[in-house]
């Protein structure tokens, strides 16, 4: 066991730091660039050095580096410390690009991959539909090949960033006669067309991070299919991952916890700082135990991934643990803020406005629920742990429904 990175990696870290010191924040002429252009220029350089787009072949604009979880982690740490731009975020780089690289036609890779990783094309994901949550096989949106175009009709939901996306990758039912999973295809659809209407789907906080997408005779060329007709289910499950970020979610949880401790130190509770209240102390300490176990398990997974080993059952648990932590953070915060627990999460300010932090905790109190449902409900997560992790029998209804 050795929590240092060793000489070779520390050498690598030194190089990364030196690189960042040179080019970020932008110096000289580059300092004059717009924020966006500056980031773009930076990314090109960082990719040349092999720091970004590491899993993407050079010919599609990547740096084509051998997989190395430790280097990837050092890059994340140092870039984050320097507040430098990382790989372009989003569902396009996270899900579409790996899928195209594994299953796409050559022309599809050429057309889409580089522009997506460089942030010039934005994507949204069209999987979920009203009425098919965890049960994707029941989706109903239809695609019909009419001449040289697919014509799509149906409705998608939970479509993050649909209003800003250029393209959507989506699952449609194209083979009406086929059995549940076998009738689905994976299509790439341009968003800017009359057949597509995007409506925001506000959440209970009042904000709107999701959309519904209505497809009414929406069109896309016949060849904008990834994999063959009826293979969409398998295509969508290609989970090629170059370097996992196995400690990312724990780092998020840790940041939330730090925020909570700060809140407890700065909020008066029952006549003294909340952190001095014995009940709050016990709750914080208990939660920190869960958090630390989660964090250190991330280190275990990082090590296993770096060695190419299977970290075991622990990898089925991250989502549910992160959800549980988020939920407990929110509950403790709600107790700490007292009357502010009645405030509107979107409270815009005005004369009686409280410091922004309080309403952000209300937001968190509700949003911690959104996290639970976004990654599939906690019940789905528990099924996964029980079935894949513990080897218990599969759910009878899911099994029946999948026709096995």
């Amino acid at each position, binding site marked *: 066991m050795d929590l240092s990175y060793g000489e070779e990696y520390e050498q690598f870290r030194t190089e990364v730091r030196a690189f960042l010191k040179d080019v970020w924040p932008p110096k000289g002429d580059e300092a004059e660039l717009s924020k966006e252009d500056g980031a773009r220029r930076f990314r090109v350089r960082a990719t040349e050095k092999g720091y970004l787009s590491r899993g993407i072949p050079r010919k599609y604009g990547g740096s084509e580096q051998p997989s190395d979880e430790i280097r990837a982690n050092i890059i994340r740490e140092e870039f984050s410390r320097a507040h430098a731009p990382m790989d372009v975020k989003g569902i396009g780089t996270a899900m579409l690009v790996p899928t195209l690289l594994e299953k796409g036609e050559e022309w599809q890779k050429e057309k889409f991959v580089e522009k997506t990783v460089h942030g010039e094309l934005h994507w949204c994901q069209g999987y*979920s539909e*009203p*009425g098919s*949550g*965890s*049960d994707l096989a*029941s989706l109903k949106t239809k695609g019909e090949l009419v001449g040289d175009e697919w014509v799509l009709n149906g409705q998608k*939901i*939970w479509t993050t960033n649909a209003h800003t996306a250029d393209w959507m990758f989506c699952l449609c039912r194209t083979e009406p006669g086929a059995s549940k999973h076998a009738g689905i295809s994976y299509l790439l659809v341009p968003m800017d067309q009359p057949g597509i209407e995007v409506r925001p*789907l*506000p*959440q*209970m906080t*009042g904000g709107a991070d*999701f959309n519904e997408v209505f497809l009414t005779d929406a069109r896309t060329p016949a060849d904008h299919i990834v994999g063959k007709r009826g293979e969409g289910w398998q295509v969508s499950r290609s989970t090629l991952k170059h370097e996992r970020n196995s400690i990312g979610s724990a780092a998020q949880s840790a940041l939330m916890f730090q925020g909570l401790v700060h809140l407890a130190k700065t909020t*008066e509770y*029952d006549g003294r700082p909340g952190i001095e209240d014995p*009940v709050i102390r016990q709750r914080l300490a208990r939660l920190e135990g869960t958090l630390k176990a989660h964090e250190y398990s991330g280190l275990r997974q990082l090590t296993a991934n770096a060695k190419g080993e299977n970290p075991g059952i622990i990898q089925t648990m991250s989502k549910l643990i992160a959800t549980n932590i988020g*939920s407990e953070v929110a509950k403790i915060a*709600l*107790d700490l803020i*007292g*009357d*502010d*627990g*009645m*405030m*509107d*999460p*979107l*409270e*815009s300010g*005005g*004369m*009686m406005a409280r410091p922004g932090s309080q309403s952000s905790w*209300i937001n968190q109190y*509700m949003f911690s*629920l*959104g996290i*639970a*449902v*976004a990654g599939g*409900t*906690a*019940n789905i997560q*528990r099924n996964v742990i029980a079935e894949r992790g513990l080897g218990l029998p599969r*759910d009878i*209804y*899911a099994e*029946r*429904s999948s026709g096995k």
Partner: protein
Amino acid sequence: MNFDLTEEQQLLQNAIAQLLQNELPVTRLREIFESETGHDEALWKNLVEMGLGGLVIPEEYGGAGMELLDLALASETLSYGGAPGPFFGHSLAALAVSLAGSDAQKQRWLPQLATGDAIGSFAFAEAGSVWQPEDWVMAGGDTLTGTKLNVPYSELADVFVVGVAGGGLVLVEREASGLESHPIDGVDRARRIGALIFEATPCESMPGAAADRVRDAALVLLAADAFGAGTRLADMCVEYAKTREQFGVTIGHFQALKHQLANMAIDIEPSRALYWYAAHAFDHIQGESARSAAIAKAHITDNVMQIARDSVEAHGGIGFTWECDVQLWFKRAMFDRAFFGVPSLHRERQAQLAGW
């Protein structure tokens, strides 16, 4: 020995439920929820015509002369139906004047409050989540200067019962000089709140010492309201489980969800007796009144908040959206839990009142 509602009480609850079913479909509720004022005059008129403006006002002043239990039952049913508006603050103001007002104050205010022509409210909270009469700082006297927070419908009410240092109560009229009201953006848009800022504002002292009684009554009403919200949420979840399908069956077939709904049921159903008892103790068992109220408020509002969270999850993704009705009662639960102090505060009071 009869721990049950009278026929009249059941009729009262049924009548309210019927009214809300007719006059407050959820589409209308949402309009009021999203409106400027959070108040619907037509609905208010309907409610006060049923006598809800003066349930606990003595009959000689035009009220129904009923007890806190009746008020709590009305609160439960109004909450179950999601009713927005000033009923809560109004009822406590009416109770406070009935208990502590001078004859002149009663003459002047109770008849108007009973008919709902005047709307009452109360201003107890001060900055720092201060609610309890013994903690009030704003000085009384002939005039008031200072700020009270989280006043129900401060923009709307015609008269306020205001708590002052030493645990006294005073009356302030809306038109009084030096009185400003500012809305506060609360989470529950069905129960609006605001701040009152007093600047040498004239006030009238109330002779009776009833602040503690009014506090206990408020706790019982919040408990009853939370109970109504909790049963509504639990019912919504069961209904959803019976209709929503997944993997070819209604999701109520999934044992994990069944058990979550069973746990929800055991966290809410026994609370009915808990708030009944607290209300009954307020009316008839003086020695248990304060403690029973603290227990009911802490226990029920805390349980219901968890039920509200679990309800979002029981609905899956849709439960987290604005368009899903869960949010309406979720926010009601947040209000009931925070208003007049979070559960831990009342649990500590509960411990002290037991001599622990």
